[in-house]
């Protein structure tokens, strides 16, 4: 508990509460439970992608192709649905996840077997995946009336008062958190990113671990692809364009170290919520639309400054006399 209070997660929780208070002072309706649930639902796609990205960043990689992966998976789902409206949703979900995972694996293979830097690989596949959408769709949109009611209804179906989309976000968070904490692969993500050199000495394959990180990120992007397309009931080449940077920002705000090996799923959750709240609050609090971009940019900088400051570890302490002073110093 004391460790939590000193952690960047606590810092970020504080920042979120302060942010909510600020918003509520201008628009009290924002913090009504129903609205907060809606904000969480709206943030779920970002959250799901950020979970995958977190795992990738933990292994000292980065996946810039998630948004393109999402768009391609989403387009394929939409086209499948348009062609065979009777296809049940579980099949569509399976296709989305599988397709996303395959795209993630393509990234992973290039990183693992050919040792191309991840940022280069995913910068490349980002444009390639987008291009493929254009090729398969011929640039045409898939519109609401071409989609079946079951297809578009799934993410918004209500379960225990929350839409399925929100449940997906919760489920993905719980699943990834469990995997990180309790499976050997989950721990390997930390080891491989924290000290890739040492990982080899412990018999962990750096490349293979990274491969699985990309696969997971891809699968989650594929899942989000279907959810996204179904939610907005439209699929086209450019959906979620530029979303990859927002996903990376969510991770880093959540304290996932871009240098790999450090960060928590709770952090990612908070980081995504922080951005989600900012994005959802800007339209309702009376801010000129022309100010929005500058405000979200500043929010990212401030959040990162705060949590990098709080994460700065004090070195070990040699002096006896300094030891007693240290805890307060570290908390400040």
């Amino acid at each position: 508990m004391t460790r939590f209070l000193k952690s960047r997660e606590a810092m970020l929780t504080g920042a979120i509460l302060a942010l909510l208070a600020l918003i509520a002072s201008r628009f009290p309706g924002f913090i009504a439970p129903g609205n907060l649930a809606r904000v969480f639902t709206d943030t779920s796609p970002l959250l799901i992608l950020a979970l995958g990205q977190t795992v990738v960043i933990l292994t000292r990689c980065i996946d810039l192709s998630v948004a393109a992966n999402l768009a391609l998976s989403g387009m394929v789902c939409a086209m499948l649905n348009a062609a065979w409206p009777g296809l049940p949703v579980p099949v569509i979900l399976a296709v989305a996840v599988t397709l996303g995972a395959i795209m993630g694996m393509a990234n992973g293979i290039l990183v693992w077997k050919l040792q191309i830097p991840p940022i280069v690989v995913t910068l490349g596949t980002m444009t390639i995946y987008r291009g493929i959408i254009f090729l398969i769709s011929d640039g045409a949109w898939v519109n609401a009336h071409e989609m079946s009611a079951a297809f578009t209804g799934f993410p918004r179906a209500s379960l225990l008062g929350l839409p399925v989309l929100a449940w997906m976000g919760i489920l993905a968070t719980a699943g990834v958190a469990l995997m990180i904490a309790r499976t050997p692969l989950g721990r390997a993500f930390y080891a491989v990113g924290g000290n890739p050199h040492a990982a080899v000495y412990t018999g962990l394959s750096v490349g293979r671990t990274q491969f699985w990180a990309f696969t997971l990120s891809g699968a989650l992007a594929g899942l989000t692809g279907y959810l996204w397309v179904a939610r907005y009931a439209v699929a086209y080449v450019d959906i979620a364009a530029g979303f990859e940077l927002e996903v990376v920002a969510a991770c880093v705000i959540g304290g996932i170290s871009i240098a790999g090996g450090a960060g928590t799923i709770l952090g990612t959750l908070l980081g995504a919520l922080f951005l989600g709240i900012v994005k959802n609050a800007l339209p309702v609090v009376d801010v000129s639309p022309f100010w929005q971009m500058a405000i979200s940019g500043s929010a990212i900088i401030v959040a990162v400054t705060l949590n990098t400051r709080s994460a700065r570890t004090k070195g070990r302490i040699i002096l006896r006399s300094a030891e007693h002073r240290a805890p307060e110093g570290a908390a400040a």
Partner: protein
Amino acid sequence: MQMSVPSRQFDQTQADGPVLALSGITKTFPGVKALDGVSLELFPGQVTALIGENGAGKSTIVKTLTGIYQPDAGTITLAGQPVRFATAQDAARAGITAIHQETVLFDELTVAENIFIGHAPRTRLGLIDWPTLRSRAREILTRIDADLDPDTPLRELGIASKHLVAIARALSVDARVVVMDEPTAALSHKEIEELYELVDRLKAEGRAILFISHKFDEVFRIADRYTVFRDGTHVGSGLMSEVCEADLVRMMVGRDVDQIFPDRVHNPGEDVLQVVGYSHPTEFADIGFTLRQGEILGFYGLVGAGRSEVMQALFGITRPSKGVVKIGGQIKVIRSPADAVENGIVYVPEDRGRQGAVIGLPIFQNVTLPSLRRTSKNGFLRLAEEFALARQYTERLDLRAASLDQDVGNLSGGNQQKVVIAKWLATRPRVIILDEPTKGIDIGSKAAVHAFMAELAAEGLSVIMVSSEIPEVLGMSDRVIVMREGLIAAELEGGDLTPETLVRHAAGIGAAAETTAGDRA
């Protein structure tokens, strides 16, 4: 406390034969043949010392038999069966475990996890069994007398504690072969003694041990057998009882080495560096000393006493909170290493790989990096001058390298250290600080470094030598400052300089130390 780590006696039926035998092992890296058809045999219940100069291929064979490298040629036989290890986990499963020369730990994981990563106990569902993992970690730590909480994140530990975790990790596997690659380099006197006891225990349990060290006293203390490598070839093996130190050195180096510390006349000149009331919020306090021209000032202390911290503050890496530094009688404020170099103070760090050599740059660029202003013209590089300067100093230090254009990363540890020393000498400093200058350096090079230090002092350079090796401190220093827990415990000179006084002050035992430390605290 009952240990549950199995301490079974190993089957002694084939006690005469080696449990692990490597033969004809060859391993080539781009440009270097690190191993050339070498053989090595390890016997149950015996300690085999592997010795050789820096770059002889010792660590490479360790990596080969633990599955990290795959040999280009040769065979590995384990208990009579030929084996092949694709990964370190394969080797661990076969009962081979190692404490590697590099620290191979993970800062973001806890102590317990570091011990078990790669072979964590699992529940029936295949998930990690945390309670078991923690309790087994606690047992192993107890077994090696390490007072560490298994749940502490590793990043909160000092370097010595980290090393204990590495040892615990090696013991977490029920191994019949335990490899230790320079395990004592980062340990202090007391911990070294404990390590020896541990080795004895492992021996008694019938495990085969491969022990790599550059320290001969150590080798003679614990080894039963020896194997010597030179330049990637096998030059001899046998029983320790049948050789003397000089024989081993001859095998290693191919000639006799004079191991006596160079004769020096203590003839210090004027004060070059004065440090007064130097303090840091958490690392050290009230450090004061004077360094004179042509003097070698030793800094002794247990590992973690804060010596490196003081030196790094003098070099401008960390900022002291109080105190002044005078160079040549004038007060100087040193805010960065660049300031320090301008003022003629240079520092050869302890952490060679991270702070010393710029891995990725060729040798000559490493050497000229702080001297570029001299080799360049109006800010533009002149390669010919750079090569000339690099050659002058690397050849003086007897560097072994294929060419000056070679990446320093491909040199052995000892040779990297030579590049770093060459780099600083090329700046023509007034004060050179050497932090553990011979750590991990082979005996031939060690003698060369010692001779070289004496020579530098004779030329009028002032030397600060931080060292944890008592013979080196006594043999080289004109004066010695002993540090303990961030404070100066004693300043010793002349007749006061004995192994006993050093240890007493460093560990804080005895009346003398009580008063000294008490005065300053």
